[in-house]
């Protein structure tokens, strides 16, 4: 079989995540080690739904920089809060000093941006004219680009900036997009990540599709009955890996993307597109299925996703590769899920911890994977992360240790 030349690996020189598990890596690591879920009964805003959510605490108290007040909304507050953890802010400033502001790109995934601001504004339309309230700022909050625009302006960047919006695979695909732009020599580094925050559109929307569980979600359980919506922001600084890379460095080895071409909100039942994405990530890295030590599944906890994904993984990897979904801990952070789970994969590579999937009462016997329900430790060299979105937008990312 012919093997294509592997892509030159990129290093995740810094990364951070903020979710319902807590602010920053220490809190995230601790929750995963303790098998603690951040999900709680939904009492968000005025929402009245019997479901669980993964809410980030303290967003109301986040202060945005005075010169960027027009960007003030839940989503950009979450972005700002996350950027200030784990020295990520300083790492960005250091990269700017090394490369220059025009050589750093911003590639961020989101699905709903600051739509919560618009949803609330629609309750306060002018009774006579129907106009939106005076303070409503479309560009700063509503538009999907808002969060990438905010991050670019926060750091005074002048390179390419874009929001990538393919629903629940958005912030996985940013890694592939940034890798292309670095590979094409247009930039030297990229802030990649995802930011998605709770809003009524997704809570009532997934409820309308009967895809929200009344309990904390139970991926791969025999009687799983839906997902739990979460919110999160996760970022990584991607740079070319030097020849003398630190052996402990975390690398992006490959990315695979595909489309289901099947249905807007249901996955292909056999996971054909998912399998193609995983296969292409391996090909991009010049690796075989047996080279992967752990798979962080998309694993939303809906009956259809877990069934389709299981078939796709089984078909490509067989039933031996350890895998789990971390959405029982974090909820489904939608457009931020890919980046959040990329960071969880990086933590797994660093520590050798494969997080067990939470909330499983009885494993679904139809899903014949080596699905971990308890934490396990092993030396991990390479891990795969799956993300699949509405519209059939699939992405698989392969991460590894430098040595």
């Amino acid at each position: 079989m012919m093997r294509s030349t592997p892509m030159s690996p990129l290093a995740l020189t810094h990364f951070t995540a903020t979710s319902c598990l807590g602010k920053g890596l220490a809190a995230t690591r601790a929750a995963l080690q303790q098998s603690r879920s951040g999900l709680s009964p939904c009492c968000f805003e005025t929402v009245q739904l019997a479901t669980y959510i993964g809410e980030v605490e303290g967003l109301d108290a986040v202060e945005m920089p005075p010169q960027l007040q027009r960007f003030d909304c839940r989503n950009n507050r979450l972005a700002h809060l996350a950027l200030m953890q784990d020295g990520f802010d300083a790492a960005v400033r250091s990269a700017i000093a090394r490369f220059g502001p025009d050589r750093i790109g911003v590639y961020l995934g989101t699905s709903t941006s600051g739509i919560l601001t618009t949803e609330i504004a629609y309750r306060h339309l002018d009774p006579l004219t129907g106009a939106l309230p005076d303070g409503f700022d479309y560009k700063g909050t509503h538009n999907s680009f808002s969060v990438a625009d905010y991050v670019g302006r926060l750091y005074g960047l002048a390179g390419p900036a874009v929001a990538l919006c393919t629903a629940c695979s958005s912030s996985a695909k940013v890694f592939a997009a940034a890798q292309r732009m670095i590979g094409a020599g247009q930039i030297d580094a990229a802030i990649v990540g995802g930011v998605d925050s709770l809003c009524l559109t997704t809570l009532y929307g997934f409820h309308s599709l009967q895809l929200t569980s009344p309990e904390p979600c139970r991926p791969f359980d025999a009687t799983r009955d839906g997902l739990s919506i979460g919110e999160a922001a996760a970022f990584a600084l991607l740079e070319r890996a030097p020849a003398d890379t630190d052996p402990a460095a975390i690398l992006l080895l490959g990315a695979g993307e595909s489309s289901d071409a099947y249905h807007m909100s249901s996955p292909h039942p056999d996971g054909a597109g998912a399998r193609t994405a995983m296969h292409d990530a391996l090909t991009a890295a010049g690796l075989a299925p047996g080279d992967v030590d752990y798979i962080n599944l998309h694993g939303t906890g809906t009956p259809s996703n877990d069934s389709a994904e299981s078939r796709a993984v089984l078909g490509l990897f067989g039933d031996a590769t350890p895998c789990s979904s971390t959405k029982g801990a974090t909820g489904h952070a939608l457009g931020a899920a890919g980046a959040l789970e990329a960071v969880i994969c990086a933590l797994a590579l660093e520590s050798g911890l494969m997080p067990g999937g939470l909330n499983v009462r009885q494993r679904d016997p139809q899903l014949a994977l080596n699905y971990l329900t308890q934490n396990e430790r092993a030396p991990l060299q390479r891990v795969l992360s799956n993300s699949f979105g509405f519209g059939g937008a699939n992405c698989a990312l392969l991460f590894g240790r430098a040595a």
Partner: protein
Amino acid sequence: MSTLTGCIQGIGVLGPGLADWSAARAVLAREQPYLAAATVLPPPAVLPAAERRRAGRVIRLALAVGAEALGAATAASGVADYARLLPTVFTSSGGDGDNCHELCVTLASGDRQISPTRFHNSVHNAAAGYWSIAYGCTRPSTSLCAGDASFAAGLLEALAQLAGGTPAVLLLAYDANYPQPLYARRPIPDAFGIALLLVSADSGAGLPQLEVTLSSAPAAPMEQAALESLRASIPAARGLPLLERLAQRRAGTVVLDYLDSATMAVGVQP
């Protein structure tokens, strides 16, 4: 900054007073006067019946310009076969504004039961999803938003894909107007879309060639005031100066609007 290159194998255009590339080319080359008229969106015949009913205006717009760009490169009977094989880059500032408005109205009302179809159509990549279903295309697809910079952001991504070894990619840039009250805050006057079928410079002998680099030069306005009004008010129409060059078959560099921090210089060899 190094340049990104690509060749244009097909163009699709649809906007106010610009019914297709043939009509737009004649206006841009000043062979015909520009006559303002509301954008007429064709029904999405390529979609299965169930999806056809659910397809909003931006989806019909994207499907129309994409098919036109492919039609320029292949016989009409070959469009579907070509589309099935092509990776796609969708880029739009706002997605489906009608759908977004309806969701916000329902969520602000006493009964928040939103329609499942409205919800799945609310994703920014809805047009990409419908396109892939219409043509059975399982190739990679991305959906971008860079606000007013969305056209140039899409062109950059498409050319980066070519640089990475993809032989051909279809770029679809499209925007449509919001209804009130969002229209007052985002006054996009009408639907406008551009699709470019881009192929690598290696395989594009004889085709118009582009060389793209970020710039600090100011973006060029359109020669004709009515077209400049379109360019300035619809993000997807920020690509019109490039089409003007191509229509006039004039070699040289045209500067497109991109971000506040940079513009995009496009060297054109028609």
